[in-house]
């Protein structure tokens, strides 16, 4: 019998490559038991790599019948194996939760025997938490590709978020390193859960007591830099998944080499592509919250994101005709396109200018990155200028000003954007 410490060590270690730790988006309330969901999520601590720790993220087991080359838990890898019992996972979750260590549980698993056998155990855990422990905290369940629809549907009644990982951005990439897998087995359950979510919502309009189903929605993850896809291909896939399956999030995880067994993969010692990962998240953000279309940022002529500068600045430099934007007159959607101005500052600008035209010192106080933004905006005291400076000059000036902090800010998920 392995001690619980050792199991936790093995099964937390094996689960950590799933970068998602989000606990947001659910509205579950505490109905005479313990726990509730916090709509915006809570990070209870941060690891030394600067990532948010919100959930107890573990595998049920790292035994696996598959042999995906990019995965630590693959069959042929020589690692210690462990498996939690249903009771152990419930006990850990409850005791961590009551001590306010976590927002909830993120449970995934290697595939033990077969998909349904594994899924059945995971289902038992979430049911026990909800029914016996009267636990209303957050649960993220990574479903097992190939598990029966009945089980997936039942699990949806207990969990807050579901995910299935694409693993590699394209089918071709996946075939290179995991020939037994395909994207279809990811698309199918995502589509199925999405349909269920819609019909539960419809029903809720008619019948008030309809139970909630996956209230925090679905997400997926792609490993970046293991296989040769370019940024344009990656973001096309992400865009497609956001649109077709209504995903809440797509995660991009810079590949961390874990063995030298497969010559197609980056070898141990090569640094994970953290800057690139950051650029992909920024692009993702621009598409979802800044009103950008994918082809404005990436297109067949422009298939790589610039690593030196963020994608918004990069877009701005390629589109000088859009600037300067007059912050005292332009609408919100134009102001958020100015490099160095985020959504919050743009809102403040719109409100503050009702009291009089804004000057540079006021913009600085409001908190925009003025040294970057100044090339792209006009305010009350901007000097009159004929034409605009060459964008090549602007690029160099910004890079030299050392304002480009983003190079060091290479976290995943929680970044300082623009």
């Amino acid at each position, binding site marked *: 019998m392995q001690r619980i410490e050792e199991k936790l060590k093995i099964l937390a270690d094996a689960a950590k490559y799933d970068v998602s730790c989000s606990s947001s988006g659910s509205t579950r309330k*505490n109905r005479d038991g313990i726990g509730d969901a916090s709509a915006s999520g809570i990070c209870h601590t941060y690891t030394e790599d600067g990532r948010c720790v919100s959930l107890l*993220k573990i595998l049920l087991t790292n035994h696996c019948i598959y042999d995906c080359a990019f995965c630590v838990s693959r069959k042929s890898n020589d690692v210690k194996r462990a498996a939690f019992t249903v009771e152990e996972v419930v006990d850990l979750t409850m005791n961590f939760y009551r001590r306010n260590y976590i927002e909830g549980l993120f449970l995934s698993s290697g595939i033990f025997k077969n998909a349904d056998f594994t899924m059945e155990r995971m289902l038992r855990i979430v049911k026990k938490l909800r029914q016996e422990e009267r636990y209303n905290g957050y649960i993220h369940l990574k479903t097992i590709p190939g598990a029966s629809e009945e089980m997936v549907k039942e699990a949806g009644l207990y969990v807050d978020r579901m995910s299935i990982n694409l693993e590699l951005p394209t089918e071709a990439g996946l075939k290179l390193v995991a020939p037994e897998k395909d994207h279809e087995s990811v698309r199918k359950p995502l589509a199925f859960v999405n349909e269920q979510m819609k019909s539960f919502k419809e029903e809720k309009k008619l019948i008030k007591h309809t139970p909630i189903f996956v209230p925090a929605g679905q997400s997926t993850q792609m490993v970046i830099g293991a296989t040769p896809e370019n940024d344009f291909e990656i973001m096309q896939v992400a865009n497609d998944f956001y649109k077709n399956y209504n995903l809440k999030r797509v995660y991009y995880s810079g590949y961390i080499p874990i063995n030298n067994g497969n010559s197609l993969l980056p070898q141990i010692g090569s640094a994970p592509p953290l800057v690139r990962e950051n650029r992909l998240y920024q692009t993702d953000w621009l598409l979802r919250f800044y009103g950008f279309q994918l082809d404005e940022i990436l297109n067949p002529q422009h298939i790589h994101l610039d690593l030196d500068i963020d994608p918004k600045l990069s877009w701005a430099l390629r589109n000088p005709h859009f600037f300067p934007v007059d912050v005292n007159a332009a609408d919100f959607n134009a102001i958020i396109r100015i490099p160095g101005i985020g959504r919050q500052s743009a809102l403040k600008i719109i409100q503050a200018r009702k*009291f009089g035209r804004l000057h540079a010192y006021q913009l600085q106080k409001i908190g925009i990155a003025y040294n970057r933004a100044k090339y792209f905006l006009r305010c009350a005291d901007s000097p009159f200028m004929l034409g605009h400076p060459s964008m090549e000059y602007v690029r160099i000036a910004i890079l030299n000003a050392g304002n480009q902090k983003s190079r060091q800010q290479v976290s995943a998920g929680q970044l300082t954007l623009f």
Partner: protein
Amino acid sequence: MYYLFDGTYLGFLCCVFESFERKEATVVPITSEDHQIDLFKDRRTIVTDNAKALRVQKGVQERIGNAEAMDFYRAFLSEDRKAWQASFFILHQIFTGRTAIRQHYGNDHVLYFSQILKKVSRERHRMKAFIRFSKSSDGLFFALVEPDFNVLPLISDFFRKRYADMPWLIYDMKRKYGLLFDTRQVGEVQLSPEEVQDTTMPSVAIAMDERDELFQRLWKQYYTSTNIEARKNMKLHLQHVPRRYWKYLVEKK
């Protein structure tokens, strides 16, 4: 003119009331905790009168709505003298008809007020995140904290709703009071110095739940295992978990 009040929010609102009564627009609210208080020569002592305070509170609510009126309470809890003064300025503007003043980010007081609200809100959020309960043998979950601002009143509801089936105590070591939940309601408590000693050295005094140490160990284990060495970024780490909070964080102790 300096207004010396008792340090409570009601007292603060009474300062606002008095300044209108006396038509003294430039007022600096201070409490007995401000240093070198005797240097402030022209000072007036304001006596807290609940009825007056409530009139001010009502007046603000009527003009800008309940939600925004709460912001003045939040800013007050910052204990920041500059924020108090900004509140004073804004309240004066509101009572003289300029109810949209809060959007005037070009104004220093308004900007400062919005910044302090952000800070208070961040501290409140941090307390929701960084509080760590230990379980004693009689089943009480207790936590010690030293928040930058006096945010306990702002997290009370959150903890009451979430941990509704267990008794808990959250104690502010800096301000020497705590919230105690008995599974029915939350009340304010003060501990004697000996009791505080007991909670800081639980091994000596408070009998701990026999499995409490196990879960603390498991949590530390988890924290170590979930870290990815190849991505190490201490700068970012410290930005999220500043050192001053480590003292009470099981995983950082």
